[in-house]
């Protein structure tokens, strides 16, 4: 006598009930609660469970089904076993993920993409079959088990599943069986994803682990390439690649041209991409460009190719003291400064081919409206506090000192050059008045403490909703590891109220009458720029920004900007309670360092955006190299020599060489006409390998692993080069008929791979991609076909296709050329420029002052010790200036020491203190202090 225990809403129970009804085996069925512990030897409640006549339990749904099949006279075949094993080990984890997304997080569209790989495997297998069911002419246990596993998802018509026609037919065929229909009714009320019982069941399940290709995550940035040529492809994979190839171009609609304004669309993936807003008063440097605008550009371009509905906005961040100061320096108004530099920014990004849908700015009427609206909503809901703040005021300069105009000793780690808002060494936020020995950065005087009334955002009050939202967003979105880590460490330290007002002129005015002489603090104001910039793009901006149900928001930035995007800005929006779209995917890069680290004055050293074009190196090559170096997961370093090596080895000898040879063979040997292809096993294996790289590319790109997916492109052209090298079509073309035919096949396959590469390259090198397409005369539908679903490498240039005129794509960078560039941009000139922009002005002014002081003391015949102290100060200042200018005047300072500060290094001291306190935190910070000279988007005050 047997007894089957099932629970409502549990899809595994659907399997066993359907099989039970199908086989007609006699068995008692008992409905129990999800939490009921039926199997005594398992610590977690596990259902369904079958109590066997012997008193033992079966607790695996598939084993129960197989057993029911066997006792009813259907012993399990190898094929049946294979499907059941595949279901348990491959399909089930994906289904769990998909259900989690769809049922608990309301992300139906992602649910179907979580299943893409498994569904296309199933589709391919069904394509190869002549039978209506998986194993035979009649339904088997495997059919019912797979049907039941997919039932909640496939029965939901709201989900778009791409083109899995065979799966759809098979699914409907199985579902029509009376046994399946009635079991679905019994377990899920015939409702699929919308079943309440399913939701109740899912809520009791542990969250599934994230399944993604993680093995490439830990690859170091500048590591040499490893060709994946020895990857073993199974017969199935080879067969399926061949089937895909033969499908050719589908009659898919072309990716339509963008129609502005782009607005969210029902049933589409609506992706809103932002890049951290660059601060207006400087020319952006390469670190800025790779960390934000360029990374976001690659992802936005990729998204458009995938057919998603993408909007990419960015703009210049223009308010704040730095602008005011710059204006004073150049004798212009702040607005004039902003106008001037906004144009500089826009033209640099244009040169880098950053394809914004809209590049705006923060000094607009919309900014004022939206910022003030958010402010009032926070105020009305009691999320603002009033307090008197002690602030530093420089009597000499006659003004309150903004954080970035104060420097002093960090109260936490004793670093002597901590900024007024944050310590560059330990990363902790600082209240300027807590700085020890504060100095005005303009005149080097000690400022005094004055009090002033200010408004604060009550972050502690918003902590609970913030954490709730963060858990959801981090759990379902693609947050980079550093973004999660930085956010968690902020929360761990506890949130404190944060001042949102400033005693400044150049900013968004605070609308509250009690604070009429104040403006919003930049950190409160600047992220609102994303909204106001969109509002300047379209009146219907709220369809993007107040629509979390339809919109997925991607924020790109360097890691120093993370807390503002993950904690502070979300708190403003959560507190406003206006259904704002909050970030779903926070993508933060590490830092890009500069090869020459001899400058100790850290900020701003490097190549600037406007210099890149003067190098004569094409924008596409710059894009390639920066993306190749993208500090993804860890810091990386720019070097001129490496840039030349990568250009010559990867672009010229690998990628360019392959594409050029493939095209040249067609034009030279076959009169511009793609020859007939007769695929041999070796060719089919290549198709499978290329197809595998394409799938990798897509799955990595979907996860915003931009650097890693670039490697897939290079792997494909490496495979192509090997293929040509082994088959020697240039020799075979001179041989007999068989040889000539072979030369044709190899040429045809190669030129098709070249065409695939043009599709994959587009997000990275748009101009080169366009050139390749023109050379190959590529049909416009290639993109939509190849990048559909998990990727399809199809024959897109069939026999008879006419190509255009082929010419080389890349040029060699010669050693002397690079030496020249290095001298021009990496040497003295950079240091002069840096000194001009950043370093010199706070140093030069104290000089005469200090000199006079020494002279005066000497004239007064003061005590020698007193004079000596002041003389030391003067010498020290001179030394600092010399270092800032790149002239190392201390021969005894060891070569190769990156840190040119005086020993003992405060970083080391600070590190020792922190190491003791908290090893995890220390590890984080080691990264931050590892390099003195780096490029990264700086969080301006």
């Amino acid at each position, binding site marked *: 006598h047997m007894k089957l225990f099932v629970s409502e809403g549990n899809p595994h129970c659907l399997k066993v009930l359907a099989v039970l009804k199908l086989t007609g085996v006699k068995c008692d069925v008992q409905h129990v609660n999800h939490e009921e512990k039926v199997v005594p030897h398992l610590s977690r409640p596990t259902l369904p469970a079958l109590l066997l006549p012997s008193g033992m339990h079966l607790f695996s749904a598939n084993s129960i089904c197989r057993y029911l099949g*066997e006792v009813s006279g259907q012993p399990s075949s190898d094929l049946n076993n294979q499907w059941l094993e595949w279901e348990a080990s491959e399909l089930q984890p994906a289904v769990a993920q998909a259900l989690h997304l769809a049922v608990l997080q309301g992300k139906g569209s992602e649910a179907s993409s979580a299943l893409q790989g498994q569904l296309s495997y199933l589709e391919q297998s069904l394509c190869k079959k002549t039978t209506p069911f998986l194993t035979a002419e009649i339904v088997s246990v495997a059919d019912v088990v797979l049907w039941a596993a997919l039932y909640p998802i496939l029965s939901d018509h709201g989900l778009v599943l791409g083109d899995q026609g065979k799966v759809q037919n098979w699914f409907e065929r199985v579902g029509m069986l009376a046994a399946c229909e009635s079991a679905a009714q019994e377990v899920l009320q015939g409702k699929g994803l919308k079943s309440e019982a399913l939701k109740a069941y899912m809520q009791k399940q542990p969250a599934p682990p994230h399944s993604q290709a993680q093995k490439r995550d830990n690859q170091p940035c500048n590591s040499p390439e490893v060709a994946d040529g020895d990857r073993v492809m199974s017969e199935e994979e080879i067969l399926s690649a061949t089937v895909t190839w033969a499908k050719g171009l589908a009659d898919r609609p072309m990716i339509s041209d963008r129609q502005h304004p782009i607005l969210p669309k029902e049933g589409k993936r609506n992706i809103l991409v932002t890049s951290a807003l660059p601060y207006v008063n400087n020319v952006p440097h390469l670190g800025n460009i790779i960390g934000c605008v360029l990374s976001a550009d690659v992802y936005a371009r990729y998204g458009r190719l995938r057919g998603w509905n993408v909007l990419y906005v960015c703009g210049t961040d223009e308010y704040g003291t730095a602008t005011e100061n710059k204006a004073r320096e150049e004798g212009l108004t702040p607005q004039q400064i902003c106008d001037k530099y906004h144009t500089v920014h826009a033209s640099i990004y244009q040169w880098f081919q950053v394809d914004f849908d809209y590049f705006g700015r923060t000094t607009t009427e919309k900014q004022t409206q939206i910022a003030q609206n958010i402010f009032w909503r926070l105020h009305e809901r009691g999320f603002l506090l009033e307090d008197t703040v002690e602030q530093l005021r420089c009597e000499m300069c006659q003004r309150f000192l903004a954080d970035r105009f104060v420097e002093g000793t960090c109260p936490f780690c004793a670093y002597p050059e901590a900024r007024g808002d944050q310590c560059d060494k330990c990363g902790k936020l600082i209240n300027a008045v807590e700085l020890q020995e504060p100095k005005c950065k303009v005149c080097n005087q000690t400022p005094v403490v004055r009090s002033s009334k200010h408004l604060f955002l009550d972050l502690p009050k918003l902590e609970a909703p913030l954490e709730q939202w963060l858990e959801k967003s981090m759990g379902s979105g693609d947050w980079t590891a550093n973004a999660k880590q930085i956010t968690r460490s902020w929360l761990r330290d506890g949130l404190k109220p944060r001042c949102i007002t400033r005693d400044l002129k150049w900013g968004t005015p605070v609308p509250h009458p009690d604070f009429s002489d104040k403006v919003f603090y930049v950190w409160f104001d600047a992220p609102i720029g994303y909204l106001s910039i969109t509002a300047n793009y379209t009146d219907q901006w709220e369809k993007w920004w107040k629509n979390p149900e339809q919109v997925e928001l991607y924020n790109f930035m360097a890691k120093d900007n993370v807390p503002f995007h993950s904690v502070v800005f979300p708190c403003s929006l959560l507190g406003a309670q206006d259904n704002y779209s909050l970030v779903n995917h926070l993508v933060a890069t590490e830092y890009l360092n500069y090869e020459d680290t001899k400058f100790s004055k850290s900020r701003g050293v490097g190549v600037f955006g406007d210099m890149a074009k003067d190098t004569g190196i094409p924008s596409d090559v710059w894009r390639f190299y920066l993306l190749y170096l993208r500090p993804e997961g860890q810091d990386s370093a720019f070097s001129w020599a490496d840039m030349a090596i990568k250009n010559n080895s990867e672009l010229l000898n690998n990628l360019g060489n392959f594409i050029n040879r493939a095209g040249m063979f067609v034009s030279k040997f076959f009169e511009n006409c793609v020859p007939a292809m007769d695929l041999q096993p070796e060719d089919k294996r290549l198709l499978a390998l290329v197809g595998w790289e394409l799938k990798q590319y897509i799955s990595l790109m979907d996860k915003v692993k931009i650097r890693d997916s670039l490697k897939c492109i290079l792997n494909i052209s490496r495979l192509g080069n090997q293929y040509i090298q082994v088959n020697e079509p240039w020799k075979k073309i001179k041989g007999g008929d068989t040889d000539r035919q072979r030369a044709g096949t190899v040429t045809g396959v190669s030129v098709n791979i070249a065409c695939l590469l043009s599709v994959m390259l587009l997000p990275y090198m748009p101009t080169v991609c366009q050139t390749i397409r023109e050379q190959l005369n590529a049909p416009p539908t290639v993109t939509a076909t190849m990048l559909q679903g998990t990727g399809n490498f199809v024959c897109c240039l069939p026999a008879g296709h006419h190509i255009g005129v082929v010419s080389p794509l890349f040029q060699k960078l010669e050693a002397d050329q690079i030496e020249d560039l290095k001298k021009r941009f990496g040497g003295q000139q950079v240091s002069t420029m840096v000194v001009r922009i950043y370093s010199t002005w706070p140093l030069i002014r104290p000089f005469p002052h200090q000199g006079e002081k020494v002279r005066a003391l000497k004239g007064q015949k003061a005590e020698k010790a007193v004079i000596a102290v002041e003389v030391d100060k003067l010498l020290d200042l001179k030394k600092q200036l010399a270092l800032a200018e790149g002239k190392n005047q201390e021969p005894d300072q060891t070569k190769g020491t990156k840190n040119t500060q005086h020993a003992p290094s405060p970083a080391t001291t600070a590190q020792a203190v922190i190491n003791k306190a908290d090893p995890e935190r220390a590890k984080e910070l080691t990264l931050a202090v590892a390099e003195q000279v780096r490029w990264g988007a700086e969080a301006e005050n």
Partner: protein
Amino acid sequence: MALKELSSLEKALGLKKPNKYSTQGDKKVPVLQRSNGPALSGLVTIATYLVREANRAELLGESAEHRAIVQQWLEYRVTKVDGCQKEDIKTILKDLNTYLEDKVYLAGNQFTLADTLMYYGIHHIIVDLAVQEKEKYVNVTRWFDHVQHYPGIRNHLPPVVVLKNRVYTGSHH
């Protein structure tokens, strides 16, 4: 890993001619190319097929019920033990320990394919156990020791030392 296991299994079954295998996908799922039929994929599927090829069907269980239990533990091996996270290990050991309290082998009193594959799959976990933990999961340890000494099974894996006398008398299981 799975390929080593399959070749050990071939030896244990006394199959003379080694088969050719490849792998597919990121998880390196084994694939067997057959001359007499389509390729088979999946560790359990291939292992089950090999046992039948070697005419050792008793290793798959002798009754329908017995066969179901063997298949269940084979599935448990590839779905729960393979790729388990650190925090899952304790649950797996605890559950197996309770289950094996009144059994010699996984499917009762007879040695089956489930024991072989579970042994291969759990070996890396048992190797890392401290003496104290081995004593805590005493039934698992006893079972493991049986299997590693079962003729012809151990093959590619190093033996794990199991003390017969308890060292930590105070610990309960």
